[in-house]
Each structure stands twice: as C-alpha cells, then as structure tokens.
C-alpha cells in the first residue's frame, strides 16, 4: 500500500507490444512448411515502475521464454520491448551492453547459476568488474555491503557456494543481481527450489529490498499462493499468450477467464476442510503442444464454455473492469 503513495502509478518502466518468440523445430520437406514452436506468441504487457508484476501459468505456457526474451537472452522474433524509452528488441548485441545492468535476473537453482570455482567475493564482484565499476578494493567493500544487505556477512566472502545452504545460495544470487543497482529484477522461479520455511525468509527480503532500493519485480512462478502474496498485479499466461491480467485481489476474487478459474481451483490449500470441498472448476486435460496450436482460442480444447465461435475467432485481450483485462469471448 505505502508503495503506491510514492510511486507514480502510470509510469511505465517496460512496455511490451506484440512480442513473439518462435523457435523453429523442423525444417520441413525441402524447406517447405517448416514447423515452429510458438513459445511467446503476441504478448502485450506494461510493467510499472516500483510494482511487482506476477506471471503465472503451467509449464510450457511461455512464461520463462518471455522473461528470457525481455532481457534479450533470446532475440525476439517480432515485437517491441520498450525500456526507458529505448526499444531493446531492435538493438544489436553491442548496443545492448549499456542497458544490461538495468535489468537483472534471479534464477531458480542457485547452485547451477553460481560458478562453484569462484568464491563469494568474486561471484558478487563479477558484474561490477564487467561493468568496469571501481577498483579491486572498492569492489570488495561493495561486496561486503551487499552481503549485509542480503542478510549474510563479510566473513562469508571467502567461502565457496557449496559451503552454503540453498537459502543462503539464493541470497548470494540476489546480492549478485542487485550489485549494479538495476531498475528491473526478473525472478524466474527464484524461490521454488527452497524449503517452505526458507521461502518466507527470502520473500520477506525481496520485499525489503524493493522498498529500500525502489526495485521493480517481474515475479515468475507456478506457486499461486506466493504470487498473490508478493504481487501487486498478476498476469496469467496460456500457450504463449496473456489470457488475463489484473490487480492481485481482483484476480483471485473475481477471475474472469475460465483458465484462471481452473488454475485457482487447483491451489493446494493447507487446510483439510477447505481442500476437500468439491470444486466445480476442476481442470480437465492437459496443455496442448505449442507446435500444433488449437485454432481460435487456445484454451478451447480444455474449456467448459467453448462454443463454435471459439474455434474460429481468437479473443482479444480486452479491459472489462478497472485494470482488469481478459481474453475470452464469454467473460463479463
């Protein structure tokens, strides 16, 4: 709440328009009819400065590919990624360098994403070094400072990743990500590999850092309870498209897309009385292949409301209530 008072709600940090990332999966016969996996297939999204935007969806929905395209780990097939007024999608690799430090990423597995042969000091100093900031001594001082910020201390600087627990390793990953004072931090399943009791520690820390450093988060996860807790707004993805986006309470109180309803109905609730209530919105079937996409609305093959219209016409993402957009012919 207090976040919004000192934040201009309308200030958009990143504006994404019709973003596509297609991967070619087969060349086709003599180059004819090549097949594409449309991982991200026309996404419009605004990320507002200072907010936490959650992104949810089943595996294969394209949420991680979207994240990787936003930071240009992948080159987009088409579309616009406007960040601070510059279209990152159009930039060449070299031209991207000055922008890289402003967008950082925290990955799921802190063990795989930290080089095991480097000590903590070098791991956290590496981004500073690459950006050419300070000398050896000042970088070490900054590393000590960052270690304090993420709840570790300078005695940890000379140790190696394997000497730490999963939660501590994720703190190191976070220190590395914020070392360059980024504006946008993308958390891709950043807490999923951690134990429940440790997840809460890391989430609290992410919230504190956001307040202190004015960070904007794109928080990608399959954990539907945690995403509601941490996000201001949440987008729901299905087969490469955004099907609904709304402020967190509005989405959970009044989900308008049948997919969102089914997704929310499968949240495991740690209360046997609630968990065993019969739920009408139980999800049927599984996510289809993003190579052979259904015609019209992508969700129609699993949708209880699907009609002939859904097979021929793809619904557009429309604003149905304040800040609440839905892509469904029958949403109201």
């Amino acid at each position, binding site marked *: *709440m207090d976040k919004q008072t000192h934040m201009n709600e309308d200030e958009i940090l990143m504006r994404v328009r019709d973003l596509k990332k297609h991967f070619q999966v087969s060349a086709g016969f003599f180059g004819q009819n090549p097949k594409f996996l449309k991982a991200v297939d026309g996404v419009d999204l605004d990320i507002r400065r200072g907010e936490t935007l959650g992104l949810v969806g*089943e*595996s294969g929905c394209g949420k991680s590919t979207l994240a990787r395209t936003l930071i240009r780990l992948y080159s987009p097939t088409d579309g616009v990624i406007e960040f601070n007024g510059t279209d990152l999608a159009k930039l060449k690799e070299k031209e991207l360098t000055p922008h890289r430090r402003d967008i950082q990423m925290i990955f799921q597995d802190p063990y795989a994403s930290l080089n095991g042969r480097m000590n903590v000091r070098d791991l956290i100093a590496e981004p500073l070094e690459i950006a050419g900031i300070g000398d050896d001594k000042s970088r070490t001082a900054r590393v000590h400072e960052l270690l304090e910020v993420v709840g570790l201390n300078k005695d940890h600087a000379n140790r190696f990743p394997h000497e730490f*627990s*999963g*939660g*501590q390793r994720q703190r190191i990953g976070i220190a590395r990500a914020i070392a360059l004072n980024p504006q946008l931090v993308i958390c891709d399943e950043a807490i999923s590999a951690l*134990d*429940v*009791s*440790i*997840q*809460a*520690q890391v*989430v*609290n820390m992410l*919230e504190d850092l956001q307040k202190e450093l004015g960070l904007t988060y794109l928080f990608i996860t*399959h954990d*539907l*309870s*945690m995403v*509601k*807790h941490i996000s201001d707004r949440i987008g729901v993805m299905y087969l490469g498209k955004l099907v609904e986006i709304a402020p967190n*309470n509005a989405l*959970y109180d009044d989900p308008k897309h049948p997919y969102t309803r*089914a*997704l929310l*109905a*499968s*949240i*495991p*609730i*740690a*209360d*046997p*009385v*609630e*968990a*065993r209530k019969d739920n009408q919105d*139980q*999800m049927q079937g*599984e*996510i289809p292949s993003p190579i052979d996409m259904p015609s019209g609305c992508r969700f129609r093959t699993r949708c209880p409301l699907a009609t002939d219209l859904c097979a021929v016409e793809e619904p557009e993402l429309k604003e149905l209530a304040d800040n609440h957009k839905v892509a469904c012919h029958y949403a109201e």
Partner: protein
Amino acid sequence: MSSAPLLKVDNLTTHFHTSRGDVQAVRGVSFDVKPGEILGIVGESGSGKSITCLSVLGLLKANGEVVDGSADFEGKQLTGLSDKDLRAIRGDDIAMIFQDPMTSLNPTLTVGEQLIETIVAHKPVSRGEARKRALELFELVKIPSAASRLDNYPHEFSGGMRQRVMIAMALTCDPKLLIADEPTTALDVTIQRQILLLLKDLQEKLGMAIILITHDLGVIAEVADRILVMYGGMVMETGDVYDVFESPQHPYTTGLLDSIPDVRSHKKERLTPIPGSPPDMLRPPEGCPFAPRCPHAMQQCLEAMPPLFERPNAKPTVHEARCWLHHDDAPDSLKAIFKAPEAANG
C-alpha cells in the same frame, strides 16, 4: 480403525557413513500404517522422510545402514531380510513411485512393453493376457485412449501422464501398500490435483494403503487421513489430519503453517518465516532438533530430547507432539500458545 497395522515401524535408526563421519538421517522413528489408510509424511529436505521409507524397503545406497530398530510388514520382519526375499515383497505387496517418472522408465521401450514385462515377471500369465491386464491398468489410472497409448514411448507422454504410467506399473500386483515419494512435486498444480484425486480414488477402490511423502502441507491437507511431521530425522508431531491442521501442537508445525501465505487473505501481511536453517545431521543438536530455531525454546529444550507427549484429540486417532512445552512443569504462559482441539472443532 482398530484393525492390526499393515506396516509397523519401530525405533528405526538409519546412518550414512561418510568420510566426515556418520550422517544421522533417521533417529528412532516409529509409526504404523493401517490397511487402506493414507499416511502423509511431511518434512523439509533433510528431515529424513524419504530415507525412512527407503530404509523400510531396503533401498538405501551402499553407505546407508539401518543401525537400529525394525520394520514389520504383516508380521514379517523386513529389516535384516535377504535382498531376494525383500525383492519379492517389494514387487508384490509394497510398491513405490517417485518424483520423476522419466528416470524410472526405459526410454527405448514402449510403455506397454514395460508394463507387460512387469506383469509377466510377477504373474504366471501369457503375454496376451498380460497385455489385457496392462490395458485394464491403463484404464484404471484414467489414461485417455488407453489402447493406443500402450504403444507409445515414454517421451511421448507428458509429465502427468508418465506419472499415471508409473502408478499403473506399481499396481500390477495389487499391492497392499503404495509408497509415493513426492509424486506430484514436478507437476503443475492443475495436474497435481488430478494425480492426487486419482491416488485417493485408487485407495478407495482397491483398499490399498498409501504413504504419501511430501514437503507440501497443501498436498497432505488434500488427501491424507493421518499426518507425520518430521524434522531432524525424528517425528515431531503426529495425529489425524484434521486435528493437526486445526490445532498444531508443535512449534515447528505451527511455523511451517505460518510460513505459507494465506491465499484467502486480502491484506498484505508480512510472512512469518522460521528463522535459521535445519540442523546439520552430522552433528545434530543434543536436545530438541528444532530448539535452535524455536521462538519458545527453553534451556531444557537445548539440553534434553523431549519425548512424544500425548495431546487431546477431537478425532479418534492419537495426537502426539515432541515438545517440552507439553510437560507438566512447563510455564503456563508458554503452554497457552497452543490451541486446544476441542475449541477448534466445537
């Protein structure tokens, strides 16, 4: 529910011998599984929940050893049994499924062939009869267009369907007990719910008992009858699922429940994590393993291991918690932190 237990585990103690010393993975775990019930074992990584079950089945890695205690299945002692005898029980009476079904399937054979092979290995039937049985099993676990799916290879199945294949395979010999170790952890929530409901359905239809091992209290809440909360290689709390969730009697259980955000809440409240990290099982604490992280720890907790204290229960199942705060001499102010089950269910 007073029938004789199917599985009786008593004071089970398992160590792993390493170059740095013995890792005390399981420290005196005792529990029963009754025929036809679902027992949920919950705990974080390193709590000993999986090792407990692997010890029961004799599936420990070479450096693991059951150093004390016993496991009894229908009156037969499992600990100390020869590999050959254990294998017979594992195949016929007790089956197990794991988190990642892909690693348990042979990628070069169709799932039908693998299923038929399993059936023929355990039952005196022809391949034709085995195929018929395989088809029945596929239908039982609700794989759509079962007949044609038998001829697919593992990679042609999604994660959820692969887990169904594994369940079908586990059911070939009508086991009396199915041990499911994090069976839904790698799956999406939508698919997780489908698999959990399938397991519940099979338990009801076949009268099979299930031990469900998970780190997710939500999974337990959804299907288990009874719960065992493990920490530091020990049972910290056990009881009927409704009793334990309504009125947890151990600060660790309370801490776990408080760490999860309440999806029904509208207010943005700060999460209440459990401070610190789990104990190093090479040198577990002398007293209660949770004491170093416990907000209510007393001197006593750091020095001596608390026994399991029996707690009031609203359901017929015994409710126990390993916490010194339930001792008669503990200060009343601290005892007051626990909710009484009567009030919760009244």
